[in-house]
């Protein structure tokens, strides 16, 4: 009798959560479960922006590719379709907004486990090459991919499921990824954000070792590893000096150049002086992105020499 009472009540307790699990399976906001009921395009609007790292890692697990782009939101401005148009090569964008070097490195190894990589482009800014910049969203995302049960208990997935159901069945767009502040405020906030990294600069001992490891691995396995330093606006370029980090900044460039071919666009010139080229001091506009794509992947160039035409290296 005690057993019956216990299991009946346990069933009553568990039932709503089973139904919730079923609805997560139905909506499958990050396409982990390959549920067929709602189109991927819907989820790209309603869920993917909630956790781009999870969305891209799942997509890569299911459809891996040998050529990848790694970086933060700046690399996200480089469109693989544009690269394909210019070079005929297919690349997969594995960049995440606000990424840390931890995430880039972990994504490299994750991708390398899934497929034999051929070409890897890493977009790294000075603010990332700082041991203090430690966040890592790849670990929890990989935990979800490896243990799908966690998919059903993840708050972001639950939120994504709700937004997806809303968009699919009542047409309500959650409007994810739209800035909530004015362009001027965004400009100031981006500068302040970068200053905070500089203020807490921690010599990248750990990151240097991790990149060196990747560099050696790529050399041994004939993977074409290249680095890009994207052009920051002049306001952003002034930050290392302001915090007395000039030496560290040039060491950063020297380090990257020692790990593989480097395209360095972060130099004072007309492009970086012109505010019109930027949405905020960090993010350049589409014409600049296209120019970079042409410069690096365009036919008949080796890239590294071209990039120096944008601005003279000062190291």
């Amino acid at each position: 009798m005690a057993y019956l009472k216990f299991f009946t009540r346990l069933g009553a307790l568990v039932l709503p959560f089973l139904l919730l699990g079923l609805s997560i399976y139905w909506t499958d906001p990050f396409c982990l479960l390959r549920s067929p009921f709602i189109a991927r395009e819907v989820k790209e609007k309603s869920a993917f922006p909630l956790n781009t790292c999870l969305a891209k890692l799942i997509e890569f697990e299911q459809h891996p590719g040998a050529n990848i782009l790694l970086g933060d939101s700046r690399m996200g401005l480089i469109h693989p379709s544009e690269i394909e148009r210019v070079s005929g090569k297919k690349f997969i964008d594995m960049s995440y907004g606000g990424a840390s070097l931890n995430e880039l490195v972990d994504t490299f190894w994750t991708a390398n486990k899934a497929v034999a990589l051929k070409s890897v482009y890493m977009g790294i800014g000075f603010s990332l090459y700082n041991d203090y910049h430690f966040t890592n969203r790849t670990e929890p995302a990989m935990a979800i991919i490896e243990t799908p049960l966690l998919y059903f208990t993840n708050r972001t997935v639950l939120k994504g499921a709700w937004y997806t159901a809303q968009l699919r069945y009542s047409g309500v767009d959650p409007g994810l990824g739209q800035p909530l502040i004015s362009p001027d405020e965004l400009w100031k906030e981006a500068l302040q954000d970068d200053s905070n990294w500089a203020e807490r600069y921690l010599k990248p001992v750990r990151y240097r070792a991790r990149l060196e490891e990747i560099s050696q691995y790529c050399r041994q396995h004939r993977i074409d590893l290249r680095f890009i330093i994207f052009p920051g606006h002049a306001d952003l370029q002034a930050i290392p000096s302001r915090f007395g980090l000039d030496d560290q900044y040039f060491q950063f460039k020297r380090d990257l150049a020692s790990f593989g071919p480097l395209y360095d666009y972060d130099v004072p010139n007309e492009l970086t002086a012109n505010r019109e080229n930027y949405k905020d001091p960090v993010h350049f506009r589409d014409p600049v992105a296209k120019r970079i794509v042409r410069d690096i992947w365009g036919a008949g160039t080796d890239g590294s020499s071209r990039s120096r035409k944008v601005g003279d290296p000062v190291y």
Partner: protein
Amino acid sequence: MAGTVLFWPRTVLFNSLQFLIFFPIVTALYFALPPKFRWALLLGASCYFYMAFRPIYILILAFTILVDYVAGILIDRETGSRRKLYLIVSIAANIGVLAFFKYYNFITLTFQDAGARVGWTYPLNPLDIILPIGLSFHTFQSLSYTVEVYRHRQKPERNVGIFALYVMFYPQLVAGPIERPQNMLHQFHELHRFEYSRVVAGLQLMAWGMFKKVVIADRLAPFVNQVYDHPQTYTGISFLVATVFFAFQIYCDFSGYSDIAIGSAQVMGFRLMENFRMPYFSPAVSDFWRRWHISLSTWFRDYVYFPLGGNRVPFLRRYGNLLITFLVSGLWHGANWTYVIWGGLNGLYLVLEQWGDMLGARAFPNWSTPPGLRLPFRAVRTVITFSLICFAWIFFRARTTADAFYIASHLGEGLANLPDDLQSLSFIKANILMRLDKDEFIIALFALPILLLVELLQHRVRLRVFIERQPVYVRWSLYYACCATLLFFGAFNRAKEFIYFQF
């Protein structure tokens, strides 16, 4: 992959998927088996639980178990000085294992360091030793058995299997509570039936422990780690936030573990001792130590403090005994000077508190707090006690003594400008959120008052009884809310070991 996990997991943490499979299977088998086989099932399950961490180390446990089992029988059989001899053999074997695995490298490095200062080369070198999980806990539990047999407070256990189960009962094997034989051994001979209310109470306690661990402790950990791993990049407010967070992290981590341990044992019908009793509501440091890690505090009281003379000695020696007990307790926690300082600091607090009380009683023999001021006085004393305990936690958590002293000496840095600094969003992001997810921070801020409120209610009105008296829709809404909170606010995807596993 799933097969590997099921049959030979790397860990069976209470907050892991493996335990979610392990626990119902063991519990179901426990009630399904005839009573005479149940201890064997639990012993097998406990071996599996322990060996999931590092199989070979089961031999260390086997050695301790065999030595203490034989010592218990011999101590009981013999009289006079031979009894003492067997007790000493048991103590030496237990402490020897503990000393080798836990303190060999610490002692070696300390001597090497000290030798280098005076130009002497210490001949031994550190070894690559991996500390067996929960070594300090099961060693102390086993040790208490032979001491209690020696003191004629416990009859020796004749069944070696049941004695082994006493030492390695899986719910409390790796992080306590450190049980006494008088409380545990007889329970392995008793018949436990499936009782609905007891099973439900046990599961509820497990859920509460899990809430503390996965919703609070694991959520606070990244904030604490960030500051304590890079103290030089932070200032006062970050140290204060991280230290208070650590106070709650370690409490929720450890008391959460204890709740899951006590709850899972309760489901099967075993009663483990209480390990925490709202320690952060203590109005005095002495009170704190009566409520924090009770099984260890009472162990040190009974086996270290009392044998040293306890309170029945002149006050100066009593203070010395207190300091010695707390220094040893600090060393028990870890082979590092940070733990020794932490223990010493707590001992010093107690000495000063007792000394202050003695002076106060002499100066104002008839003084008592006016009734209207008792609550505010108690609140002030509780805040002071909590601050002192937090200050000591700095030494417990810091990686090195240098880091600890750096943090302790920079606690007030930048606080004068705090009202202005707090106007800046980027300051808050960098110094209070430590560049981590703000949602995580907000959830932690909501969860902490819930923790304190539930503990207070539990103490005042016996929360479980109160909930059972509510209408069915209130009760079930609460159950659903609790399950949803646990599922969706638990930090499952970064499952962390319990802090006290390392001890």
